[in-house]
């Protein structure tokens, strides 16, 4: 290359960097204050060489104990390590983690870790079937996975049977392991895992996001897309995402791969208001938005089937020929809950479309997401109740694991008013976030009519959903492992 052309190339690079703006020169700018400090520590954690494998090994050890206890432990679910830790401790903590850190569980999930170990050792590394990328199949798999994970717990009474808990764990483990043996990256977690589907939907409401600064990518003239493909021995995104263009947390587990693979320090972890991504998505797909409303119905179903009135109804249903079958009864109930939630949302969308002169179909695609924070906090509230009710079982379960005889502790909330107040308070917080999201989506839609009037159908529906959750939580509720 001649000196002149080298100079020209250098000038072009400099011009590109300058055109990208002052922030682009160097890494991602740091925010001041507490948020900035948290983000810095979060980034350090994600860049740490031991992350996420230290957590994965820890969880693998925990998983071995869980599986052993499920198959060979105490048959009393109140003294069994697998049932108590899975259904009383882990499940509520998982719900809270969705709001705080998204689907970070997927980064440390022991089944995913096992899948990765097999993949790196003897995996075939085939691409996931093209069938999985069909939009209709993605939507169908997501819907089935979400309904299935709610239905199976009730139908098989997994929370009171260590053995059923063990069989569910074994089924999921085999699915993840086989997927790791045959396919590349995290095919199981992304396309097939029912828990992953549930986690992905709720992660959209989380308070953190991992994103790249496009200015830095541009200024660095990055063409390698290392965050997706990986670099040298550092793997790329296991979910097939590119942080520079990613608009949703649904397929981000904050595993840190992209941060480690990026040579330009363009990627960081950021705090954000939960639900902010609903107003910024450019790809409005009705099936994605409807999943949020489906989540409202599923969470209502999970709370309803543990209430005292439901136990009485169930006794009466047992006398009927078809509904005496649990699989049919719970299947019909979960579909009914989802149908009511979707039906009300449809009516609100028609009313909104009439007020604003917009297409109701497009409005459904846009506003469905707004109900996700409400569904998530209701899910957290319901499961926190179980945690408060059952945490006293943990010492007995640990003693049971060690083989020592122990009497089961009494379940029951130490302070019923306190935890019911907390549940209802959470619903109020969820309603506020949903109302804020509706307002943001309205603003981004730039409709011509007065905003408060136009948003009324959707805001009213949010109030109705919240009222339904409050009524459910005010009812006496069964504990999970008895």
């Amino acid at each position, binding site marked *: 290359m001649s000196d002149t052309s080298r100079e020209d190339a250098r000038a072009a690079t400099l011009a590109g960097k300058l055109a990208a703006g002052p922030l682009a020169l160097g890494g991602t700018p740091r925010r001041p204050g507490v948020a900035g400090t948290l983000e810095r520590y979060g980034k350090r954690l994600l860049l740490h060489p031991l992350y996420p494998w230290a957590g994965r090994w820890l969880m693998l050890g925990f998983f071995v104990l869980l599986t052993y206890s499920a198959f060979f432990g105490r*048959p009393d679910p109140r003294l069994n390590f697998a049932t108590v830790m899975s259904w009383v401790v882990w499940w509520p903590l998982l719900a809270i983690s969705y709001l705080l850190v998204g689907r970070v569980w997927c980064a440390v999930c022991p089944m995913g870790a096992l899948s990765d170990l097999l993949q790196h050792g003897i995996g075939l590394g085939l691409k996931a*079937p093209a069938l999985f990328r069909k939009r209709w199949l993605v939507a169908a798999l997501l819907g089935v996975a979400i309904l299935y994970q709610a239905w199976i717990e009730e139908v098989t009474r997994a929370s*009171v*049977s260590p*053995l059923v808990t063990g069989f569910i764990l074994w089924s999921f483990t085999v*699915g993840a392991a086989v997927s790791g043996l045959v396919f590349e990256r995290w095919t199981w977690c992304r396309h097939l895992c029912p828990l992953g589907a549930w986690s992905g939907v709720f992660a959209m409401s989380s308070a953190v996001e991992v994103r790249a600064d496009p200015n830095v990518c541009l200024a660095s003239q990055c063409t390698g897309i290392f965050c997706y493909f990986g670099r040298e021995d550092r793997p790329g995104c296991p979910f097939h995402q590119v942080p*520079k263009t990613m608009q949703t947390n649904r397929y981000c587990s904050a595993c840190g791969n992209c941060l480690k693979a990026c040579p330009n320090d363009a990627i960081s972890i950021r705090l954000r208001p939960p639900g902010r991504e609903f107003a910024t*998505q450019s790809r409005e797909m009705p099936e994605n938005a409807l999943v949020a409303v489906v989540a409202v119905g599923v969470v209502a179903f999970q709370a309803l089937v543990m209430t005292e009135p439901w*136990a009485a109804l169930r006794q009466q249903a047992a006398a009927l020929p078809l509904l005496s079958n649990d699989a049919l009864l719970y299947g019909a109930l979960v579909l009914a809950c989802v149908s009511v939630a979707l039906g009300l949302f449809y009516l609100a969308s028609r009313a909104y479309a009439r007020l604003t002169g917009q297409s109701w179909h497009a409005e459904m695609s846009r506003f469905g997401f707004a109900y996700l924070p409400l569904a998530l906090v209701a899910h957290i509230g319901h499961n926190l109740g179980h945690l408060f009710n059952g945490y006293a079982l943990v010492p007995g379960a640990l003693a049971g694991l060690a083989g020592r005889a122990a009497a089961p502790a009494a379940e029951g909330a130490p302070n019923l008013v306190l935890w019911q107040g907390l549940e209802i308070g959470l619903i109020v917080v969820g309603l506020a976030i949903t109302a804020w999201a509706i307002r943001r989506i309205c603003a981004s839609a730039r409709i011509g009519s007065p905003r408060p009037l136009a948003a009324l159908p959707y805001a009213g529906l949010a109030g109705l959903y919240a009222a339904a959750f409050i009524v459910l939580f005010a009812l006496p509720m069964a504990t999970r492992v008895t």
Partner: protein
Amino acid sequence: MKPFEWNARSIATVAIAFLLVASVGVLGLWLLLSGQPGTGMMESGEHVRMMESADHAASMAPGGAMATVEPTVPGHAMGVHAQRGVLGGYTGTIGLLMILLFAGMIGLLFYALFRERPGRPEAAQCWNCRRPVETDWSACPYCGAALAPGGQPLTPPG
């Protein structure tokens, strides 16, 4: 991505995958056809009796913890769930689900190994730069063009 070819290593990998899948099918069939201890107790209500006797023994033990358990919802505990479910109760239900999972995984394995060939065209291309993109990307990472599902532009160019 590694090219796929049948050799000793890939045959061993596929064999392990089939064995794992088979374990799900065998366990499912076993559960479906036999009332096994553990879950088998659930159908007869024995589980509740066992829990009650454990509570009773604990409360009677000298110096033992006076632990009693009263279900928050009367009748919600295991006794009510007895004698119901699909094909032999809860044991049968989880067995049936495992057999369905087994069938699904076998189907997927055959599809992945024999229907999907290496070198097939990418699922989607960017409408602007023609490079391969994932169908759920919102923008092309190479040229920045906004994408709709399948790599199509959000609005037709021009």
